[in-house]
């Protein structure tokens, strides 16, 4: 972690605003909360790195604390570092090691994705998994796609392409929801923009969230050097997963002191890019009417990016479409967090706000950028959930 970020502990005025906005601390007393785990104990860690509260594992890395803090304290980064310290000192359960290695899990599932999916639905097996591994038997497992995005995607040479665009697809799109990547590809192709893809390492967020900072750092270094090359060649990098985006831009810098200043300029959410096209008058705005009402759930990591909700701006062009912000806060899943037996009830308790909002707004479809949020919103509400880019593709008749 950079010294500058550590010493942001000096900015903390102990107002507890972060605690009041922490979705986990709100629903369980087992978590000592962002203030104590973050700036309070970081002050002690300058002397004694082991000064980590045993409840640190309860931090879901959702970053609502950072957003609410009026003092610019890098609370979640302090927590992530402390979690790393804790895991180094006390070790981590095998379960966490497996859940954190999203990339390897994805690769392994390639052998027989449908088998993996079926196994994931067999209740007795799940119960066994809970007993032996501590993976909740209740949580809906993500399903693996038959073909990965990288296998499905057909690169198309577009000679007149105005922008050079590289897509950092992320593990979830690649292994689980390639249709999201395909929708993006279609939308860009429709605008005569050439899309480049390439296999990357996992952004490392699941590793960071489970305290395996060393492996995450390795991935980070590899990803940065690869991405840097593209940027030097004039590429923009776009993402559809807000967590990948934030990890590459911010966590790499905050936690590993890697220089990501160019990412901040050249890396953007797919919809930020589309809005840029819009501002240049290049977005095609003849869209099919979609007379429906959908709920929108803002992923915490998109909120933490602090640049608003770019997708809503683009979707405004779709005639007849009514998008209602659920405004229900964190969904509770936070990646691998909600799959853990002891965290599952917490994650469901947090998710109650989502069910309540979905009920109040009476919507049966919800859009959200983050794959994990999609999974959880579906799990707690039963609603059909997809990525906003899919909705846009539909309105362009590309679906």
């Amino acid at each position, binding site marked *: 972690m950079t010294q500058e970020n550590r010493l942001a502990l000096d900015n903390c*005025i102990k107002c507890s605003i972060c605690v009041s906005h922490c979705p986990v601390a709100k629903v369980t*007393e087992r978590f000592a909360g962002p203030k104590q785990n973050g700036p309070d104990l970081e002050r002690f860690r300058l002397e004694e790195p082991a000064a980590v509260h045993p409840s640190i594992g309860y931090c879901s890395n959702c970053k609502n604390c950072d957003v609410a803090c009026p003092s610019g304290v890098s609370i979640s980064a302090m927590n992530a570092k402390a979690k790393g310290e804790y895991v180094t000192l006390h070790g981590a359960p095998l379960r966490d090691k497996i859940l954190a290695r999203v990339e390897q899990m994805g690769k392994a599932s390639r052998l027989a994705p449908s088998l993996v999916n079926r196994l994931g639905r067999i209740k007795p097996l799940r119960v066994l998994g809970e007993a032996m591994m501590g993976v909740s038997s209740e949580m809906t497992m993500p399903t693996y796609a038959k073909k990965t995005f990288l296998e499905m995607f057909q690169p198309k040479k577009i000679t007149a392409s105005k922008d050079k665009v590289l897509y950092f697809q992320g593990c979830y799109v690649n292994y689980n929801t390639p249709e999201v990547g395909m929708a993006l590809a279609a939308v860009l192709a429709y605008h005569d923009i050439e899309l480049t893809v390439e296999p990357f390492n996992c952004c490392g967020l699941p590793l960071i969230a489970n305290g395996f900072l060393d492996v995450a750092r390795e991935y980070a270094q590899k990803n940065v050097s690869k991405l840097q090359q593209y940027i030097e060649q004039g590429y923009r990098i776009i993402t559809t997963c807000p967590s990948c985006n934030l990890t590459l831009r911010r966590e790499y810098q905050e936690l590993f002191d890697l220089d990501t200043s160019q990412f901040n300029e050249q890396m953007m959410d797919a919809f930020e890019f589309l809005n840029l096209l819009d501002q240049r008058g290049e977005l095609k705005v003849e869209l099919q009417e979609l007379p429906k009402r959908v709920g929108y759930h803002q992923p915490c990591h998109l*909120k933490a990016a602090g640049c608003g909700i770019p997708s809503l701006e683009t979707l405004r062009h779709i005639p007849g479409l009514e998008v209602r912000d659920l*405004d229900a806060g964190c969904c509770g899943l936070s990646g691998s967090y909600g799959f853990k037996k002891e965290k599952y009830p917490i994650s469901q308790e947090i998710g109650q706000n989502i069910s309540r909002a979905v009920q109040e707004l009476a919507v049966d479809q919800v859009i959200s950028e983050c794959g994990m949020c999609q999974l959880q919103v579906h799990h707690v509400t039963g609603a059909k959930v997809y990525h906003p880019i899919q909705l846009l593709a539909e309105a362009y008749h590309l679906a």
Partner: protein
Amino acid sequence: MMKKNTDVLVIGAGLSGLMAAAKAVAQHKKVLLVAKGMGALGLSSGCIDLWGYQINQPDKVCTNPLAEIAKLVSHKPEHPYAKVADVLPESIDFFLQICHQNKISYLNTNRNWQLPTALGTLRPTYLVPQSMAVPDLAEVKELLVVGFQALKDFYPDVLITNLQKNTPLGAHCHLKTLMVKLANQELNANTLAHLLEKQAMLEQVISQIKPHVLPGMVVLFPPVLGEQLGHEVTEVLSEKLGCSVYEVANIPPALPGQRLQKALLHHLKTQGVEVIIGCQVTDAQITEKRCQGVVANSNGKIMEISAQTMVLATGSFLGGGLTSQSNEIKEAVFGLPVKVCPGKWSRQDFLSLAGQPFHEFGVAVNDQLQPLDDQGQVLLENVLITGANLAGCNYPIEKCGNGVALASGYKAGKLVGEAGR
């Protein structure tokens, strides 16, 4: 670089920024609200103080703050109220209406309430959430103060000991205390509030209190009765205990202020205001007394925002609107001149009745809320200043923090809403 364009940019998510955005959007402007973090509203009692004490007898509560503020305008013309007194009644109506729409009802009795605090003092305030509207204690015969063993910030004994010294209680008033014990070892205010929304938990609490309840009893609780909007927990408690139940003001974290903040933010979103928290405005482009746009830092990413008018609702030092070094104070976004008392930022006595001078530091404005220089000349025409960022108000002593924020925010919203028509 990312660019955004809007009619009205509100900088700050404290009460004044939220009010400005609400009023501007009500006049059909495209409004963007950005803030570095949450404002002081969530730390406050949740009550809207207008003006607490008589101007010429600062130890006597004033019953009619509106009349007192009318006097203030001539008595202390540099006070922010002097710039916004014209809209004060309508801003209150507007506020009450929004609250009502969003399921938190506030009561207005057109005079100051005197409400007990967790410390056992009485504080005068004006608009009060239904859950805090404790009736006149002189009339109460039976008073029960309930605390929770697991909550480390509320002590019924402290409350009643001091209440007896600070309040004219009725001669036959009985005071009692009770500590509710739950299985939980330690709960912060938010976790407790969340738990109390579970029926089983609430039943447990009720069963412990019920045996102590007498007819006509008033029961005071810490401000933790539910996190959702609406006052459901308070209502259920009242009904099941068969007595009146209230929350009292306490050191943060406390729920009533947070609920109001949540309600107002929710209101803005439903009205189509784009709200971005976690976005700090760092710089401004100014040509000829007009601000063309500002530069903001969104978690590392730089964004350019242009707008016709801007509302600067960045608060005082606490909020981040003013920054200080050992010998210098600056307004953080535009570098506007800050009115200070040179060489005298603080008083020797921490609890001085004259107040700490630093609270009064801020930007001087005209009655259009435009920032002024030393000579009284307008510095920026399309930037309006609101709330704790304004000079001349010592809210902790005067008891007017949320009142000034409400009225000035409303007025700014009204002015920018009218602009360009």
